[in-house]
């Protein structure tokens, strides 16, 4: 192995990426776009549900309740209404998908009996959203009731026979807010790296065949290992930068709690980077045109990773045969590692099996890629 040749190839490749708008776009824009699209687009929870308020009473207590709804973050007030008509109209024109109706006698009944009813109306056309939103509404109301109950306590010395007295305390581990984003974002990071990495490297060798530069290149003393290392190293750096961007966005923008070690994160990310780049390179060596190589790279990364990495669809709920296939999907190990790193703060030894699987993949892929390239035209 000759370091000068490796550096020469790495330098040349860097210049080419820098001057190729398509590669640059994949390297720089794709992670950003995907982070936004997948990070926001694929969420199993709903935030800021547009809510209309029909407060028939307009008392201090009723306003407090409205306050609780908007303060929760699950809802945002889009209109203040003053008739039943208005509710219907607002739902029809899409101003809101839910309405909170507070009856005229709300605070009076509550003060007298310790219990009162409010009405929440939801647009049932999107059953899933409605389900979730009505769940949130229950939560908010329970909270208001609890506040009311403690006040009642202070005034009367006894608890009222209302929901406010329910003492159920639920606590969820790792994802306390049960925020599906915390579960999905690490998967999104993995899928972006897999996609971008394989896309970038899938072009690199195919480009040389397509443009006719390979014939001259293989007539030089460069070895296939030198070519592979030289070509992959600039993409590896780009991949790590992309990874840093995605991981920082996950931690600071999407506010996924990070409890692991940065060192472990960098190490495992680098390992995953090698696997991903190696797979793209392997495809590029085998398929001599850029379009074909990038299409296949998209197919072999996107589909299995979306379906079988556990990034959205939990693996433990799949049939055994499918789960067995998922063992081959290299991204699942990184998805597992990222989740463990972020949410649990697991150590390398705790994640040994996933790390070992990635390592095995990295070695195998690089070995195959170095061997797959032959310095011949036939």
């Amino acid at each position, binding site marked *: 192995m000759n370091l000068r040749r490796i550096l020469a190839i790495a330098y040349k490749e860097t*210049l080419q990426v820098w001057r190729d708008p398509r590669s640059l776009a994949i390297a720089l824009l794709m992670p950003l776009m995907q982070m936004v699209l997948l990070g926001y687009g694929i969420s199993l929870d709903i935030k800021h549900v547009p809510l209309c308020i029909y407060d028939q009473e307009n008392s201090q207590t009723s306003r407090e309740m409205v306050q609780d709804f908007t303060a929760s973050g699950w809802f945002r007030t889009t209109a203040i209404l003053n008739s039943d008509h208005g509710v219907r109209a607002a739902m029809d024109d899409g101003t809101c998908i839910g309405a909170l109706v507070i009856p005229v006698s709300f605070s009076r009944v509550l003060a007298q009996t310790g219990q009162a009813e409010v009405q929440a109306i939801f647009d049932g056309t999107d059953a899933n959203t409605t389900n979730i939103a009505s769940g949130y509404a229950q939560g908010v109301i329970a909270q208001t009731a609890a506040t009311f109950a403690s006040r009642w306590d202070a005034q009367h010395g006894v608890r009222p026979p209302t929901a406010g007295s329910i003492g159920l305390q639920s606590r969820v581990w790792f994802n306390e807010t049960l925020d599906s984003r915390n579960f999905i974002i690490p998967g999104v990071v993995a899928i972006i790296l897999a996609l971008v990495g394989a896309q970038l490297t899938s072009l690199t060798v195919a480009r040389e065949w397509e443009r*006719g530069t390979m014939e*001259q290149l293989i007539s030089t003393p460069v070895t296939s290992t030198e070519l592979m290392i030289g070509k992959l190293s600039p993409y590896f750096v780009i991949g790590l930068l992309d990874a840093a961007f995605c991981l920082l966005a996950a931690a600071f923008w999407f506010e996924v709690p990070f409890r692991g070690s940065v060192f472990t994160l960098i190490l495992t990310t680098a390992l995953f980077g090698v696997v991903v780049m190696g797979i793209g390179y392997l495809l590029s060596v085998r398929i001599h045109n850029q379009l074909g190589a990038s299409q296949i790279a998209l197919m072999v990364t996107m589909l299995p990773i979306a379906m079988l990495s556990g990034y959205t669809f939990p693996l433990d709920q799949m049939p055994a045969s499918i789960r067995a296939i998922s063992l081959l999907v290299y991204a699942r190990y990184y998805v597992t590692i990222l989740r463990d790193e972020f949410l649990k703060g697991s150590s390398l030894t705790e994640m040994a099996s996933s790390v070992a699987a990635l390592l095995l993949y990295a070695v195998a892929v690089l070995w195959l890629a170095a061997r797959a390239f032959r310095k011949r035209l036939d």
Partner: protein
Amino acid sequence: MNNGAAVIAQNLVRSFGATAAVSDVSFSIQRGEIFGFAGPDGAGKTTVMRMLAGVLRPDSGGIAVEGIDVIANPEGIKSLLSYMPQRFGLYEDLTVAENIFFYAELFSVPRKIRLARARELLEAAGLSPFQKRLAGQLSGGMKQKLGLVCALIHTPSVLLLDEPTTGVDPVSRRDFWAILYNLRESGVTIVLSTAYMDEAERCSRLALMDAGKIHYCDTPARLKQAMPGMLLAITAADPRAVRAALADAPGVLGLLLMGDRVNVRVDDAARRAPELRARLDAQNIAVTGISRIEPAIEDVFVALVGGGAPA
């Protein structure tokens, strides 16, 4: 193995599917020669060049370059060789200087030597002012000269050029050949293929190829001597009519249309010239002149190999 031979090829055979691109080709090239493969497209020139460069394996046969067996050890020759493929093989999105740097590094040219050599070669190629230009923005001739500069940055002992001057303007072609002649002085063996017969004439030895075979291989002068018959050039307003009229005339061995004249190969120039003129007069075909000329390689190729004349 012959001490003076830089390249020896024995019974090379290579086919692609059912097509035999090269069938049983043998030759030996002396050190310091400019050896040319001449022939029309599809004659098998590129396949031979690729096999010499070690980037294509022959189905059978043997190649030795500088005493190294190319089939057994294709990597062994690569630091001795420079190969310029027919299709432009450099990076169009890199500048002239970056391409040169890249190839200098691949061949581990010491940095001090690289700078001096690059300057000298760029000067000779007339590319000095264009060092910062992207290779893709060079003209066809400049591209080929850049290819030559990159091929020569590491002082190869054997230089393989596959149709290096196809599509190159006359000025660039002259620069190109000036560099090649200079190289020969320093003992580099140059192997090139060409479809241009005027260019073939510049080679020290020439292999006439057609349909995957070498039909004749000798110096241009001796190839000309080997041509049977003599050559008459008949200039006329309508050379096509001349060719048609003389196709079956007695003593005519071959006809080759050359722009405004027809080269007529005859068994005896002195005897046939008046006969042919009389025949043309009889058919009312105006002739501006008939004279005996020395054959060019093109005439020799058509006479010896026959078939469609290469460009």
